[in-house]
């Protein structure tokens, strides 16, 4: 079955700032809102959105590299287990400004007509607000034995007690 699908989705912005100034803009926003920290999403692995009429029209994005950015000059702190959730209209309306440099995401997109190659090109974006939630994860115990080659020497590298 053939359905209408994304091809090359290109986002352009009329309210841009130099990419080098984006970080300061984020810190300004954190201070303005009186928050202890903001989040910088450096990389994502994918995401999905529900499009059926009977379902909530929400999306979820699965970031892999997320940093806490503190307004007081402390170094950024890498965190894990964060998912972005929301509804498209509410989320998109909170874009304050964007950077100038456009980056391209090439990926496979799955929908009613199957998996097709698509691209999205967009600049970095500063959101005044975005909803995140803790990601479900297993509590499986790590491997019992250390990896091959790491046990005989007693080195800590890869060894798991």
């Amino acid at each position, binding site marked *: 079955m053939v359905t209408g699908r994304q091809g090359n989705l290109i986002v352009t912005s009329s309210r841009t700032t130099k990419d080098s100034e984006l970080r300061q803009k984020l810190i300004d926003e954190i201070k303005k809102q009186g928050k202890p920290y903001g989040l910088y999403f450096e990389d994502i692995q994918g995401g*999905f959105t529900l*499009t059926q009429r009977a379902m909530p029209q929400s999306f979820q994005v699965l970031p892999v590299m997320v940093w806490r950015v503190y307004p007081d000059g402390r170094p950024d702190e890498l965190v894990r287990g964060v998912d972005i959730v929301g509804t498209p209209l509410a989320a998109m309306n909170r874009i304050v400004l964007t950077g100038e440099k456009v980056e391209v*995401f090439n990926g496979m997109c799955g929908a009613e007509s199957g998996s097709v190659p698509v691209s999205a090109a967009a600049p970095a974006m500063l959101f005044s607000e975005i909803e995140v939630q803790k990601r479900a994860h297993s509590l499986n115990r790590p*491997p*019992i*034995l250390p990896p*091959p080659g790491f046990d005989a020497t007693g080195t800590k590298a890869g060894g798991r007690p």
Partner: protein
Amino acid sequence: MSTIQWSDGRPLPSARMQKLAPVLALLIALFVPSICVQAKDTQTFADDDPVLQAMRAELERSKSALKVEGMAAPYYIDYHVTDMDTHSAEAAFGALRTNVRMRFRFLRVVVRVGDYKQDSFFGQGQGGLDFMPLDNDIVALRHEIWLATDSAYKAATEALTAKQAKLKQFTVDQPVDDFAHAEPIVSIGPVAKLDFDSQPWLKMLQDSSALYKTDSQIESFDSSLNFAAVTRYFVSSEGAVVRSGQNVYDLRIAGTTQASDGMRLDRSHSYAVTDIKELPSEEKLLADAPKMLATLKQLRDAPIADEEYRGPVLFSADAASAVFSDLVGENVLGLKPDLGQPARTKGAFATSYKSRVLPDFLSVVDDPTLASTNGRSLMGKYDVDDEGVKAMSVSVIENGKLMNYLIGREPIRDFPVSNGHGRARLPQNNPGPSLGNMIVRSSETSSPEELKKKLIEICQQRELPYGYYVETLGPQHVPRLIYKVWAKDGHEELVRGAIFGDLDTRTLRNDLIAAWNDVNVENHPLNIPHSVINPSILFDELEVKRANANKDKLPDYPAPALGSK
């Protein structure tokens, strides 16, 4: 669900497996000569093989240290690696449709917790399947084994508890051990290689499939090949070290047509061998294919079988092969019943131990040690089974009586040890009882002429105008070539649209009256390679009915004219 999903991640192993499944289903072969010794100086044999080295190194580490505090340590661990190099190709209408060369390496790890009497081999505790690196980097190979062993052990500890909880629901009168002891074998055979020039074979496929042009009513005519080299590696914590190489070469032709009333008719032929030299030459294939095409034309023109017939039926050895394979071969496997069930085995012969299951003139042996018979290589030949047990010949049915089941290392009532028939489907299912070379022999033999004469005599005695002679069967025992043999003059008349009404283990036991010891060898390359060797057989009475099959409309307009563009 209507979702849009982005992903740049690699697919999960299970998804990858599903993609490969159709290809994997085609792979098989035969063992090449190997060295068999007792398990002592295994180091000597394994040293030059990186796969065996990696397997042995991780096995030693797991044996000595794998344990979670508060849980039992494994009492048994085994690693199987299957390395497959395959080439499959198919041609239709004179042109190639697929032409794929693939190489895989799979790992299966089984960790057993508990003891031989009751262990964790249940549910998730039956081991898992993973891909292995194809190159021979020992650290990379070990890394994969390390993680698989860890998962298998954790799953085993959980499975043992689940199994014990489930067993509490049943009363077990005659407990049978979960796992049989076996003498560890060291047997290092050569690595299998798939080394052939594909071009002549691809040309052969195209040339033979082009023969569809000789008959405008042929709807499909395909030629295909599936060649594979499979090397299996096995090590166990008991000390077994096995490497065996197998090759299989399967060349097939298949055609379909429709009779004027719409009945679909098909024919196929497979040349399945273990030595590429045994495959037909292009000349031979181009001579055989038209004969098969001719039978499709004959079938189109043949009358439909009568609505019902009950009388003698003669099966050629070729047709009888599928009957023995399905009705005897499937039922002599000593498959342990599900947890809590008191039966000896699964299958139609579950209660037939030491009872008559065939007429007393028939005996059945399964002999995986036999490499060939009457000049034909046998696909069910192996030296050591997939559980590290030496292959052995088993007398299964003696003068009609079921005396043994074929079993692996999962014992069943009265059969506490393996008889070397534990084999795994490719790529790497759990090993279970399987056929090797099943040989059906008759102590009373008649010549084919005598069998036909007998068929006619029975018809005459019962005032039947004709009997049936079945030359070949298709899937589900549906006759592809079946002839009326007229009692008045013995002439044969091809019919179509016939099926059997009651071809089952009961008729095989009670209504089989004669056999001729011609030797038909049927090599089965799929799933678990095995061979069936059997005679022609005569049933005193069998029901042959008209098939209740849809008669699809013929194509609205004829095939494209040859030479048209």
